[in-house]
């Protein structure tokens, strides 16, 4: 199983699921990170965290810790 946090810069992935039901997981779902959606890692802030991703045509930043909540399809 691959996590969103494991993508390399410029790499794309397809979301498999966000299994959690905590408020961060819900927020990520609401922001459009749903099963089947394509995510692309655009880069990271100067100290390596947080990350910048592209999802549903817009840019979103989130920490590695939050990106670990997102499971990608193999």
């Amino acid at each position: 199983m691959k996590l969103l946090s494991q993508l390399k810069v410029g790499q794309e992935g397809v979301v498999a699921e966000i299994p959690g039901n905590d408020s961060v997981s819900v927020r990520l779902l609401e922001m459009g990170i749903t099963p089947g959606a394509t995510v692309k890692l655009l880069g990271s802030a100067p100290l390596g965290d947080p990350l910048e991703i592209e999802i549903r045509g817009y840019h979103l930043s989130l920490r590695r810790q939050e990106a670990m909540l997102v499971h990608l399809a193999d």
Partner: protein
Amino acid sequence: MSVDAPAKPLSIALVGNPNTGKSTLFSALCGVRQKTGNYPGVTVEKKHGQLTASGRKITLIDLPGTYSLAPRSPDEMVAVDVLLGRQRNETTPDGVLVIVDASNLERNLYIVSQIAELGLRTIVVLNMVDVATERGITIDAAALEQRLGIPVVATQANRKEGFDRLRSLLADFDQVPPATIPSPFSDLFQEKVDSLHTVLKKRQPELPKFLAERLLLDTSGYLADELHAHGQEVQPGIEKARTELASVGTPVPAVEAIARYGWVQKTLDGVVTRDTTPRQSVTDRIDRVLTHRFLGPLVFALVMFAMFQSIFSERVAMALVGWIEFAFEWLSELAGSFMSEGPLLSLIQNGIIGGVGSVLVFLPQICILFLFIAVLEDCGYMARAAYLMDRLFSRFGLSGRSFIPLLSSFACAIPGIMAARVIENRRDRLITILIAPLMSCSARLPVYILLVAAFVPDRTYLGFIRSGTLTMLAMYALGMIAALLVALVLRKTILRGETPPFVLELPTYKWPDISTVLGRVFDRAMAFVYRAGTLIFAVTVIVWAVSYFPRDEEAVQQPFAAEIAQLQSERESIEAAETPTPEEEAQLEEIDARLSAIDNQIAGTHLRNSFLGQGGQWIEPVVRPLGWDWRIGAGVLASFPAREVVVGTLGVIYNLGEDAESDSLREQLQNATWEGTDRKVFTLPVALSVMVFFALCAQCMATLAVIKRETNSWWWPLFTFTYMTVLAYVAAFITYQVGTLILG
């Protein structure tokens, strides 16, 4: 609409995601006809605007920007309650205006699908069509309108394009159909909602179905508390429904996002076409630089530098400050020329003009800072700043979102604390509020400027770095470092918890909209003036009273009476001569100088005898370890309501006139001695100890009042005052003791 009777006034709620141009649309529609306030018990701003469309009066209720109508906190509940007509002291809206970002339609339609379920009359405003076109996105608005079954108006709010149709729709709002979009959820899910709704309605007949649905979806437990949906009749049913939904592959809470985004995709199929050739947007190109590993922080530092530079620039900010000071001096003299010496004149000159004036003097700097912040916010840079700062802040248990409130606090903690509303996480917001007053606000500047100029020896390092600048920077750094450390301690003790999450949209860059930016600056400037006119006004009158009374004019003047009489008769005899010789003129000047010195001495004695003076002498043992004499102590006591007051108070205390920032105050402080000795009061360690104290203390009533309002509790302002005072005292103590050790 009947012709003879005027149609009843409408109220319409304005909803939408952040970064969609919602506030631009709001101010473009309503202009300056807006009223702001607060919803009771929460930190959500209540904002109403008025507009007229074809003679029809409409009230626009601006709800806070949000990505989803899924309340997990009292603040998020407000928007839902307003839309459902459940919010007390708020009119039930006749319908909704949903603004969506055309360049980001997929995510923006998510909230449209939620609003559609409310069954209200709804208009979709498709904004930022120009940005979409630039990014190669074409939207068939007519087709979208047909699919949604509600009006869709394409606009560019910043240019007021598309407003004709919007206005005519608003004028005939009764013709707008209520939204009836088929539920995006499965039949099983809808069945579960229906049966939950039936159960709940037995106890709360008014409960809308939308809230039953939310209750089923809300895993945070917030809504169960809010709707009192605990106990045997409800909770087991919800658990059972969720298990059943999970077993067929639609687990709560993921089911909602999956269902709604599924609906969005179906709705947009064939409506949106994308230019398939991959192109790099302007935003991407700008971001290449602004979030670059090395260039990003560099640009960030430059932006911050430019901001502070312009706040303290001699040409603009300081010149404006000078004008305001001049205006108040003129007012004070004007009052003096109309009225005779006495308590009333003293109240007007020293109390009102001195107190309120000393605060209003900072208005230009506050406006400049807010201009910067508003421009950076509106063009989309603030989100990048938060992105760049997050890593640093997360080490101290904060998130990048705290950056904007803390930055605003350099002008004044009050707007800073109010800006903390953008932080969703309650604990995170609380910590930000509690540390915001540690940022060196503009009210500390006069204290720094005075003491640095008087006591820090002027040296130049590396050819251009001056010791004064370094000292000022050290004070700013002290506040910031203290703030981060306090945040860390709070996070580890009374506000224990995980580091808050950081999920932040990085919006498309755009040119800032001038009217939105100026409107925001105006709002905040007015809030500041209002504060100066009310709270600070009241407090300065009180401080004036305790430093004026008790007052025994005769007893104080008596020892000087003979000398004054003699000086005055000498003066008269010289003036009697028709043409004074140069010697006589010199003599006159000498006499005047002596007279004003006596006046100052009398003022000083009055102060020593006043309640404030007595208090100062009473606390002398407490402030001695900091290297202070009773007069500094009294100055600090007097500046409890607002720290900038201390400059004026020190002026009076050290037997001075009111012109506190002139050279003479500096010289007087330099020459001041401990009473009865010729030992100097102010040495470099003492001056530094006073500065450090003022950098860290909570001497600002207005800030404490805002903390009370924003946290809805007396405990937090009390806590802030206590911890900051202790911190300031300890730091000043260390500064003085260590300073004395090193400098002798």
